[in-house]
């Protein structure tokens, strides 16, 4: 298997585990599932982070913080789909989880200003009528300057 193929295998395994459990796996879990050494998986994590596909925990490269659209840590963007719960990194990613999982489910969040709960629901690949506006504070070319806070 080439390095590129292995990186793809790691990427797909992370998505599969996140999809099936609601949890983003760490390097040891992916290594066990793929039957490969932890170090090879960590190298793949770094390649995916360099390619802006992942954000790793700064103090622990065994752990992914963001496997877009999934967040490994709780966020204000909760997703309920296929009978499981997930967290998106932002409202865009939370909706992205619904797309990735087939286009049915809900995003539960709240207005950052007034804290009112807000819900977006997608059924059959279509957003149901909803209120609210989605705001991007950072221009596209600067998203990866500090992606965790974008």
């Amino acid at each position, binding site marked *: 298997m080439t390095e590129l193929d292995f990186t793809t295998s790691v990427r797909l395994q992370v998505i599969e585990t996140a999809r099936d459990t609601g949890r983003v796996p760490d390097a040891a879990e992916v290594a066990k599932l793929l039957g490969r050494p932890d170090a090879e998986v960590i190298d793949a994590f770094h390649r995916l982070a360099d390619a802006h596909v992942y954000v790793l925990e700064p103090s622990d490269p065994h752990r992914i913080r963001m496997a877009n659209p999934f967040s490994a840590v709780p966020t204000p963007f909760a997703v309920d789909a296929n009978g499981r719960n997930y967290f998106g990194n932002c*409202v*865009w990613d939370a909706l992205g989880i619904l797309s*990735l999982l087939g286009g049915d489910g809900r995003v539960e*969040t709240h207005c950052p200003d007034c804290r*009112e709960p807000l819900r977006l629901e997608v059924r059959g690949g279509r957003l149901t009528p909803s209120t609210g506006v*989605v*705001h*991007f504070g950072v221009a596209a*070319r600067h998203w990866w300057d500090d992606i965790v806070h*974008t």
Partner: protein
Amino acid sequence: MLLFRDEEHVARYGQNRGVSMTTEQAWRLADAWYRDRADPGWRRKTAAEAEAVFASIGLTGDFWRLG
């Protein structure tokens, strides 16, 4: 990227910079961006491809430029 109740709340929160879009645009953006993420052949979009996705849902102008 945050979801606000309305534009008044965006302004009150101090987000006087940036761009707002409808929830429908956000869904279309998310769907175009992530629908194929689990495909084995997925690769990260080039700047031109990403800008084409933005433009396809009406997101144009300097804010959405990557190149």
